[in-house]
Every structure is written in C-alpha cells, then in structure tokens.
C-alpha cells in the first residue's frame, strides 16, 4: 500500500512541490528579513491585500491584453512570412539575417531601444512581438519544408494552383508546427512583456507594480506579483494547449507517412 503510494507519479510530484515550498519557508525563517526573502505566509498576505483593490485586476488585465496583442501579431506575421520563406529560398535568405539577429539580441536591448522609439504603453507589446515572431517563423519555415514532397507532386500533376496548395496542403501540414510554436511563445511573450513593463513602466501594468516594490523595498509584494505572473502563465499555457489539442482533434492533424515507396520513386 505504502509502496504503491510512493510510486504514484502524481503523489511524487506533489511531494516534490511541497519540498521546494518547505525549503523556501525554512530559508525565509533562517534569513528572517522579509525585505530579502519573505515567507510563504507573508507573500500570500501581500497577495490578498493587493487583491482587495480593483486596481490590481486592472493591472493584470492590461498586462494580459499586451501579451495577447504581442503574441497575436507575431502569430499572424510569423505564419505569413514563414510560409513564403519556406516556399521561396530568396525570401528565406532575405528574412533569415534579421530573425537571427532578433533571436540573439538580449530582450533589454530592445526594451531600451523601444524607449527611444515609441510611447511607453506600446513598448511591452512591441517587445513581446519581437521575442515571439522568430519562434513562429522558424517553426513555420521548418513545417513548410517538411511538407510531404509526394503530396506536392500529386498537386502538380492535377494542376492545383499555388494558392490552393498553400491553403489546402501546406497550411494543414504546418498546423502541428504552428501549434507547438504558439505554445512555446506564450511563456516567452509573457515574460518579455513583464520585463518590458518593469523598465518602460506604462501607467497600468504588473511590471510597473513590480518596479514600485523595488523603490519601497516591498519584497513581499514583488513575490506576490511574481506569483501572479507564474500562475497566469501556467493557466494560459494550459488553456492554449487544451484549445489547440481540441482544435487539432477536430481537424485531423496531419501525421507524415514515411513509406518505403518514396525511395523507389527514382527507380
């Protein structure tokens, strides 16, 4: 009985989570300075105190909206550019340098540059977009390139137009790649949005609230806001994954078939 409980993976995971929480609590007790490391209780109290004010929800909602716009724009632009880059090598070579540079650039560089270029309210959206678009683009390019060549040959024989090939062959083939890149970019989009908010400090934002905790040395509030970001990130990622799974079930997502006959085509 005991052995089977210990072997149960869910119970194991719960145990490990409790272990890390306990470690946090013990460390906070040892440090005994809420300014440096608040306890779990202090963090939760700070969270409940914030949750009493309507303003808190306004901050959270606006930050979420920024992530939505940033990720949404990156999905649209990433898919369109990705499809054409996958189809035409010169388009790929045109966009590849800029995408590589964006991927390699630290997020703070963009935030600081954006401070010079635009209104503070737009900076988090812009930064979120920049962080996500190369992820979507790279995945879509790969998906287009991995599209079954034998299906494309079939389309060629039956004189299917390029537009219909994109809509009816490439897009369904790439769907799985798009879904996984959306799931991957949500987390990154969320983190970069909050980072941009901390530095750019739009009037209403979670990141702006975090910056204030630094000024007033309210570490418990910082922990509480971080907790909000983490929990929301989990919820969004979980919701998106479920949504995409349901969507792909209904749409018969493509599973590539690698049959031997592909090789014998040249025979």
């Amino acid at each position, binding site marked *: 009985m005991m052995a089977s409980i210990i072997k149960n993976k869910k119970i194991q995971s719960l145990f490990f989570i409790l272990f890390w929480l306990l470690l946090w609590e013990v460390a906070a007790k040892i440090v005994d300075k809420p300014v440096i490391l608040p306890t779990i209780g202090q963090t939760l109290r700070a969270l409940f105190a914030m949750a009493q004010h309507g303003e808190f929800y306004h901050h959270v909602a606006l930050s979420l909206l920024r992530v939505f716009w940033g990720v949404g724009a990156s999905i649209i632009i990433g898919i369109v550019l990705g499809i054409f880059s996958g189809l035409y090598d010169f388009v790929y070579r045109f966009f590849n340098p800029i995408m590589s540079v964006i991927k390699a650039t630290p997020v703070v560089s963009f935030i600081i540059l954006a401070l010079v270029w635009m209104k503070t309210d737009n900076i988090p959206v812009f930064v979120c977009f920049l962080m996500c678009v190369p992820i979507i683009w790279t995945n879509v390019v790969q998906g287009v390139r991995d599209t079954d060549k034998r299906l494309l040959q079939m389309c060629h024989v039956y004189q299917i137009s390029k537009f219909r090939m994109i809509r009816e062959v490439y897009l369904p083939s790439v769907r799985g790649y798009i879904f996984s890149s959306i799931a991957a970019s949500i987390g990154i989009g969320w983190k970069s949005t909050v980072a941009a908010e901390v530095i750019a400090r739009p009037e209403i934002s979670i990141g702006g609230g975090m910056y204030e905790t630094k000024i007033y040395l309210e570490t418990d509030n910082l922990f509480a806001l971080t907790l909000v970001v983490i929990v929301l990130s989990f919820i969004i990622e979980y919701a998106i994954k479920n949504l995409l799974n349901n969507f792909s079930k209904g749409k018969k997502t493509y599973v590539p078939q690698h049959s031997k006959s592909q090789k014998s085509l040249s*025979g």
Partner: protein
Amino acid sequence: MFLNIRNLKKAYQDKVIFDGLNLSFHEHEIACVLGPSGVGKSTLFNIIAKIESYDSGSIEGLDHKRIAYVFQEDRLLEWKNVYDNIAFVIAEEKDIRSRVDEAIGSVKLTGFENYYPSELSGGMRQRVSLARAFVYKPDLMIMDEPFKGLDIALKEDIIDDFEAHWQKNKYCVIMSTHDIEEALRLAQRVIILGKEPAVVVADIDCRTMDKNELRERIKNYFED
C-alpha cells in the same frame, strides 16, 4: 500517335537512366511497361507527368492534355475526407457533386464519403486514389504499380473497377506492374524495358497474340 518520346536522356549524378530512349503511346490504348526494379519505369512516368525533369530529348503530345496519376502509394490528404480528397482535383470545375459521386460509386466506396483516410484500409485508400484519377476525366492515365501490395481478391475487385471505367472512357493508360498476369489481363500492348541505360527490349501487341504464348515470351525476356 498520342504521345511521342524521342531520344530521351536522363541521368542522376553518376547513374545514367536513359541515353536516347524512343517510345510512343497510342490513343485509347492500355500500354503496360514491364522491366526489372530500378530500370527507370517510375522515372519515365514522372517525366511524362512533368514532375521530374529530363536532360535532353523531346516529348511530343503533352500540351493541353489532362494527366491523372495513380501512384504506388495513395498520396491522399489525411486532413480531408474521402469526398474532399476526390473533389480536390476538380474543385474549380463544374458538376463537382455528381462527378465525385459517380467516381465514388465506380470504386464501390459509396457510404464512405465522410471517412478520413486514417479510418480506411490500404485497399480502400488505393480505391480513393483511383477514384481521384477517374473524376479528373484524364486524357492520359499513368498508373505506377497501382495494385501492388493488395491481396488477390481485392486486387481483382479494383482491376474490375478500373476496367469498367476504362471501357466507358477509353483514355490512354500507361501502367507498370511486376505481375505478368496483371499485364496480360489489362494490356493491349506490353513494352519491356531492360538494360542500363534503359532501352525498349520488346514492344508486343497483345491483341494479336495468344495469352499463353505471350506469357512465355514475357517470361523469357525476364529470364534473359
């Protein structure tokens, strides 16, 4: 002459497939191309279907012809159901519904219109691929070992479907097979490709020859 291939040359890096192949096909005929694996049957078919390039030579008679291709594998779109897979090739044409229904009926898949390829057996999938070729109303039908890997009863069934459709429409068919009996049953002409680079080693009019004699002749070529 329906299709005329003259002095066709094709090589992959270090392997010469054709070095001056001459071959022609006639209207309304079923021509069966036989030959050992790797001789270049699929390459020839792909060149005729314009999905592979060739190095030099000429192919006359392809302009404005509608070509349907039944590949060795079914090449169905997994995200479209049976009906949509067949309608896919005539989506911009007229009378789609009646044509698709007729094609589905001719391969005896009525009732399976809403099934997805993943829900069908290998034989049924190949029938969908055949129906897709039928619905296209081709002038030229290329079939590359279309009945390979099917069990005997199913193969007979599909060949019956094909024969019935051809009798009605009489398009030119160029097909390959490894099964001599299949060739004997369907072909009006048997073309045997051999050697390396490939040449036509025999071009036999089956209509003027007794089946047993033909069988022996074809076997002799393969034994040589």
